[in-house]
């Protein structure tokens, strides 16, 4: 658990990079920090591992203020991934992944085993550990970067636009892979992004920052449903209703089957998103049947969707649904 209270960072010439930010990240949760460039998100992130020292306020990790920790010890317990990757090109992939265990004095056997585990986790063949980073593709290099950060089993991971320098296809691949990896771990993650879509996708909670201030800190759905002000509304984009629909599973809007039309050719699965349901309305008559394991479990109509999608978003509904 990470708690920030009234955190401020002022640089020498009285530029306030971060002003009075307070937020909490629960154990095992991912918080994304998002905002335009210069909003202070990276500064805020690096204050957590004390690469940047805070001016005022307090950061508490698992009950202890980070100022009480030895800087070096603190960093060895926190995974760190950066956009530029920053692999050590003179070391093999294996040595790169094993660097923090090595700094912490693990024995060779344990280190070797851990490197094998991680290569498996990031889906690279075991013999990659003998290779040098420069012989890998960008996507593979950042996988190694993630493995390096996870090596010493940290409780916390800090990720500074980790997938920002990759091409869109690789980026999405790595996002999906990372979400999968993360499910198997109990790691608290703080993830910086400038891309609202990435922030909504990766975060359990999203912190929108502007000019060093925390504008809103909410779950992706709440953020989309109730943007606090014009800045957030603008930042999440005009298509925030569609984004919202893509975050809600059909299951939540399904009503019990009443007069079912078994002949509908278009059926939905409870895990489909409402976005795909809306798409289906264009070439099928509603209500649509929701089918799971061959069993009809309910039906879904426009009205059902409207009942779950928050009121304040109504004004953004496309005409057909207004």
């Amino acid at each position: 658990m990470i708690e920030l209270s009234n955190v401020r960072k002022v640089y020498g010439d009285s530029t306030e990079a971060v002003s009075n930010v307070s937020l909490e990240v629960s154990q095992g949760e991912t918080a994304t920090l998002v905002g335009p460039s210069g909003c202070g998100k990276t500064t805020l992130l690096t204050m957590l591992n004390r690469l940047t020292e805070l001016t005022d306020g307090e950061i508490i990790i698992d009950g202890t203020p980070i100022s009480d920790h030895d800087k070096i010890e603190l960093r060895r317990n926190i995974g760190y991934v950066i956009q530029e990757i920053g692999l050590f090109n003179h070391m093999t992939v294996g040595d790169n992944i094993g660097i923090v265990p090595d700094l912490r004095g693990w024995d060779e056997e344990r280190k070797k085993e851990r490197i094998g585990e991680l290569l498996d986790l990031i889906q690279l063949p075991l013999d990659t550990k003998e290779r040098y980073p420069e012989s890998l593709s960008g996507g593979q290099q950042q996988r190694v970067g993630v493995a390096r950060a996870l090596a010493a089993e940290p409780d916390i991971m800090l990720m500074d636009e980790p997938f920002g320098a990759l091409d869109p296809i690789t980026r999405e691949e790595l996002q999906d892979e990372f979400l999968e990896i993360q499910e198997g771990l109990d790691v608290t993650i703080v993830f910086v992004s400038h891309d609202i879509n990435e922030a909504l996708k990766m975060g359990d909670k999203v912190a929108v920052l502007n000019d060093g201030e925390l504008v809103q800190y909410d779950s992706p759905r709440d953020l989309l449903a109730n943007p606090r002000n014009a800045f957030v509304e603008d930042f999440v984009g005009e298509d925030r209703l569609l984004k919202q629909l893509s975050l809600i599973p059909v299951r939540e809007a399904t009503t019990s089957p009443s007069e079912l039309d078994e002949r509908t050719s278009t059926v939905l699965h409870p895990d489909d998103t409402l976005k795909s349901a809306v798409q289906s309305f264009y070439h099928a008559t509603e209500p649509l049947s929701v089918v799971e394991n061959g069993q009809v479990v309910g039906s879904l109509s426009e009205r059902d969707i409207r009942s779950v999608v928050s009121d304040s978003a109504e004004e953004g509904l496309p005409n057909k649904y207004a």
Partner: protein
Amino acid sequence: MLNNVDLLLEQTLEHVDIALTAIVIGTVLWVPLGVFVYQYDRFSPPVIGLAGMILTLPSLVLFPLLIPVVGIGTAPATVALVLYSALPITRNTYTGLGEVDAAVERAGEGLGMTDRQLLARVKLPMAVPVIFAGIRQAAVLIIGITTIAAFFGAGGLGASIFAGIRLNLPKQIIGATIIVSLLAIVTDYGLGLLQRQLPGGKRGLNT
């Protein structure tokens, strides 16, 4: 003729001995100095400036200046050659460390390396190609200047060259000079092989 071969061989060995000693001492002294000025940057302009100034002193002036201090023979030669190697080695160490990718440094720092670990395990290995370029440059320079040392009684291939000049024996001058050049080329190549053995040494070998 056979005598000549023997003499040349002896002078070549002397030459190699003087030059290699200077290169080894120069490396041992100036790489750490380069690290020092990298860490305490305010010292870099005076130190590198002074090293540059030394290099502008003609060897015909520097050698005799050192004789009253360290005596005659190979000693003044070694001292002078070590001084000449200061600029390429110190400056390349300083520059090489400064050119290490900032992101790599930040990653190392963020993963919990101490300053010393960062220097020893990341920055120095990453700077190896640039540092070695300096050492190789110094080696070639030193092997050339060692020739002058013979003028002040240090021996080496310069002895044959100066004798050839005095006695007007162009073949002897050219022969000895070719050996000096070959020595420089072989040493440079040998240092390149040595560089390969170091961590991070396989990179940038074409420079």
